[in-house]
């Protein structure tokens, strides 16, 4: 191997991303005695996982003894509008309870039932109370538990280190990655026998988003450039309840736990409008009147679930329609009211973060006043196509888990299924990557040419004279994607977006940055933009080609789901392994579900 001109490290397993999936994968590989390096763009413990509030779904049956993996499987498939990888939904439903329980061995402290078991709460689309939680800060509990476990195992963590791209060997197997340290701007190379992508989502390409600066789709883009396939990129979840005011916090998440704990949605006329938006698929299990819905909150056997707890895509579309019909709030949202329905003490105990968030940022006391909320870009169901059992991608030695991977959630993710996704498939990715390394099928070299290309491209903004400010490009991109590939889409607007994205590609080549390389956010953004544009292209192309409405993809010009389109994913590949390459989008048939699983979908319909 050539000597690296940069700081160089070697690992059995390199993990890109330090959220729930990356940390869980690291634990698995460490337990196997392999050397593990974790690279994260931020400090350890700051990943987007901390933003998850409501809980992690696992059919433990601690609150509703009727619950089991079969019902969880059914709910996940129906919530995903049947576009899911059935095998992932099956594994997830079966394994989540063990993954939740093991967190307690590592120090997690979930809220309890009266008899000392892990308490579970109701959430949208879940037939039974299924979400293990800690108040409304479950994501923080998950990440802190995994972080403390990983640290106690003595794992190397490279913080504030941005991976630019993956590196191959001469036969196309993954061989590592090239990155730079944000504090110094110095480059660093990692030779690794296997690589796990656990890099999270893409939401920063939209204007109103619950996602942090980090969610720029780096892992999605890197995988595509490296030869993997992306699927379901048009399926983006707009969470129904984001803050809408003040403008500066527009998009900030309001947990679904508010509705699970009794909060209801009203329009400006005071009407609980969700009763007008119950799709046929969910009619049999949804309350018909406010009285019935309220009875359910008190006793689940006394009525059916209120429509506020339908899956997120249904609720988000309903809110959008109410605002469009002129029944919105002064700031363009609808009202979420828990203050008139629950005691102040209950709200402060169950929803402490929400209480503080509204009190401190909006000056609203949610124990007395209704919240103004509206849909916000929250999660991408699409991502890297993986094998369900192993999280393996098409590229030998490359694995993906968590939000960057696709399949489990189909066209729409149920709340609470993300945190459990992270630990179920984080563990499986860690196991499979370890098997691959132990099997001796790692790379036979390290393509330094790829490193030099990536480094040269990253440094180009320092060479350009008089080019554009990266912040201007980012702002324009966010506004363009929000306007044209947002929650409700039409063919014309999507075409416009696809053309615009070519212009953005050219603009990125002309970026100039000021200052040096050490902790320079402008430069850091310049290196994130190629990922943001790459994933936006895939989302737009998927949105153009899926001529129907399904889950997190709504076409005004094709408002119904089509049986034909329900049989395939849209898969994207790129030519030439570079971000300027031509993207190809093709239909990729869904896996065929075994009959015994099919029959589960019919139950309780």
């Amino acid at each position, binding site marked *: 191997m050539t000597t690296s001109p940069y700081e160089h490290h070697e690992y059995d397993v390199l993990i890109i991303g330090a959220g729930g999936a990356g940390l869980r994968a690291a634990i698995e590989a460490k337990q196997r005695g392999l050397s593990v390096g974790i690279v994260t763009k931020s400090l350890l413990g700051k990943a987007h996982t901390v933003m998850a509030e409501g809980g992690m779904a696992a059919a433990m049956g601690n609150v509703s003894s009727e619950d089991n993996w079969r019902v969880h499987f059914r709910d996940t498939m129906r919530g995903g509008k049947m576009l899911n990888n059935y095998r992932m939904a099956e594994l997830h439903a079966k394994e989540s309870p063990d993954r939740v329980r093991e967190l307690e*061995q590592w120090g997690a402290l979930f*809220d309890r039932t009266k008899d000392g078991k892990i308490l579970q709460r109701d959430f949208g689309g879940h037939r039974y109370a299924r979400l293990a939680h800690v108040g409304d*800060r479950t994501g923080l509990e998950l990440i802190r538990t995994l972080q403390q476990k990983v640290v*106690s195992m003595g794992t190397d963590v490279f913080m504030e280190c941005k991976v630019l791209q993956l590196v191959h060997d001469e036969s196309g197997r993954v061989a590592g990655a090239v990155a730079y340290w944000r504090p110094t701007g110095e480059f660093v190379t990692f030779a690794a026998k296997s690589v796990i992508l656990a890099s999270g989502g893409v939401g920063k390409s939209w204007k109103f988003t619950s996602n*942090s*600066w980090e969610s720029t789709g780096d892992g999605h883009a890197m995988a595509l450039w490296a030869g993997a396939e992306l699927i379901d990129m048009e399926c983006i979840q707009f969470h129904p309840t984001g803050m809408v005011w003040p403008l*500066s916090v527009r998009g900030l998440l309001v947990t679904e736990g508010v509705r699970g704990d009794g909060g209801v949605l009203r329009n400006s006329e005071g009407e609980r409008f969700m009763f007008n938006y119950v799709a046929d698929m969910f009619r049999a299990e949804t309350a018909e009147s406010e009285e019935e819905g309220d009875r359910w909150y008190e006793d689940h056997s006394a009525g059916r679930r209120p429509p506020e707890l339908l899956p997120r895509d249904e609720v988000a579309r309903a809110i959008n329609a109410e605002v469009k019909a002129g029944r919105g709030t002064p700031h363009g949202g609808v009202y979420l009211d828990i203050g008139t329905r629950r005691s102040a003490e209950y709200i402060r105990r169950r929803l402490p973060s929400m209480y503080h968030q509204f009190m401190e940022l909006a000056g609203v006391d949610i124990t007395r006043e209704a919240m103004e909320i509206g849909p916000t870009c929250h999660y991408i169901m699409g991502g890297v196509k993986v094998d369900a059992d192993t999280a393996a991608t098409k590229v030998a030695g490359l694995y993906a888990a968590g939000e960057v991977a696709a399949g489990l959630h189909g066209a729409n993710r149920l709340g609470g299924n993300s945190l459990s996704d992270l630990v179920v498939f984080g563990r499986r990715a860690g196991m499979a990557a370890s098997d691959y390394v132990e099997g001796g099928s790692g790379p036979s070299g390290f393509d330094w040419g790829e490193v030099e290309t990536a480094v040269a491209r990253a440094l180009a903004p320092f060479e350009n004279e008089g080019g554009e400010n990266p912040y*201007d490009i980012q702002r324009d991109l966010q506004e363009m994607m929000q306007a044209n590939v947002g929650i409700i889409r039409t063919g014309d607007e999507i075409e416009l977006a696809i053309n615009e994205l070519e212009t953005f590609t050219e603009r990125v080549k002309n970026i100039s940055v000021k*200052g040096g390389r050490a902790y320079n956010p402008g430069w850091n953004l310049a290196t994130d933009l190629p990922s943001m544009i790459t994933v936006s292209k895939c989302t737009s192309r998927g949105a153009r080609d899926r001529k129907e409405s399904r889950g997190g993809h709504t076409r005004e010009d094709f408002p119904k789901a089509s049986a034909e389109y329900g049989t395939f994913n849209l898969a994207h590949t790129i030519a030439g392994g570079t971000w300027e390459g031509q993207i190809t989008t093709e239909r990729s048939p869904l896996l065929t579900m075994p009959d015994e699983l099919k029959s589960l979908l019919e139950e309780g319909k």
Partner: protein
Amino acid sequence: MADVTMRVWRGDASGGDFEDYTVAQNEGEVVLDVIHRIQATEAPDLACRWNCKAGKCGSCAAEINGKPRLMCMTRMDDLPEGPVTVTPMKTFPIIRDLVTDVSFNFAMAERVPALLPPPMPEDGYRMFQEDVERGQEFRKCIECFMCQDVCHVIRDHEENKQYYAGPRFFIRYAELEMHPLDQNDRRDYVRDEMGLGYCNITKCCTEVCPEHIKITDNAIIPLKERVVDANYDPVAWLGRKIRRRTKRTATEAGVQPAP
């Protein structure tokens, strides 16, 4: 709304100075919004650390008008009229502008002896709400490290850092001490190696905690009491001498791997 002058410290380990930026502000904005506006317009290389912008990740701690605050949770309209000064946390070495090197905290985290629970029954552990609540208060910590920043034991005494874990880790030790499943004993360790005795309970840490954790009252004082109990209770002392200890000292226990 009237423009506002932001007096932001710019520089690196070799030195720096305040720079004034006069920028627009809008209704309801927080300090981080205005810092972002400076980045997006006049100073794209202005370094600041942030993630969630919702008070949940603890990345954007800085000193606003001299007081440790989260930039994302400090509303501009709550600050007095006139220029707003924003400086990096003082206790940690500067990387650049508002970003400090907080690796001291990660080094201290590595030295925490892990939870040591009994084997898990097949259907999981049983714990009761009133028993987990004490630990849950401390696990609300978002690791903004403002309690470390404001703690005078290390704020002006770099030399103390090697002996002193600081309030963030005292709540971690308290959490483990009070954890219903834990079988480790870290009382000697937290006194001898982590400098619990240096804290003279001035409650500065509690005052700045954005999660309103009662660091001093609920963690540090009970931890100090437990340490005292372990060391100065003659009956317990004699008991330990006579019996083989059922609980190990933390330094021994620290090497016990959790499952």
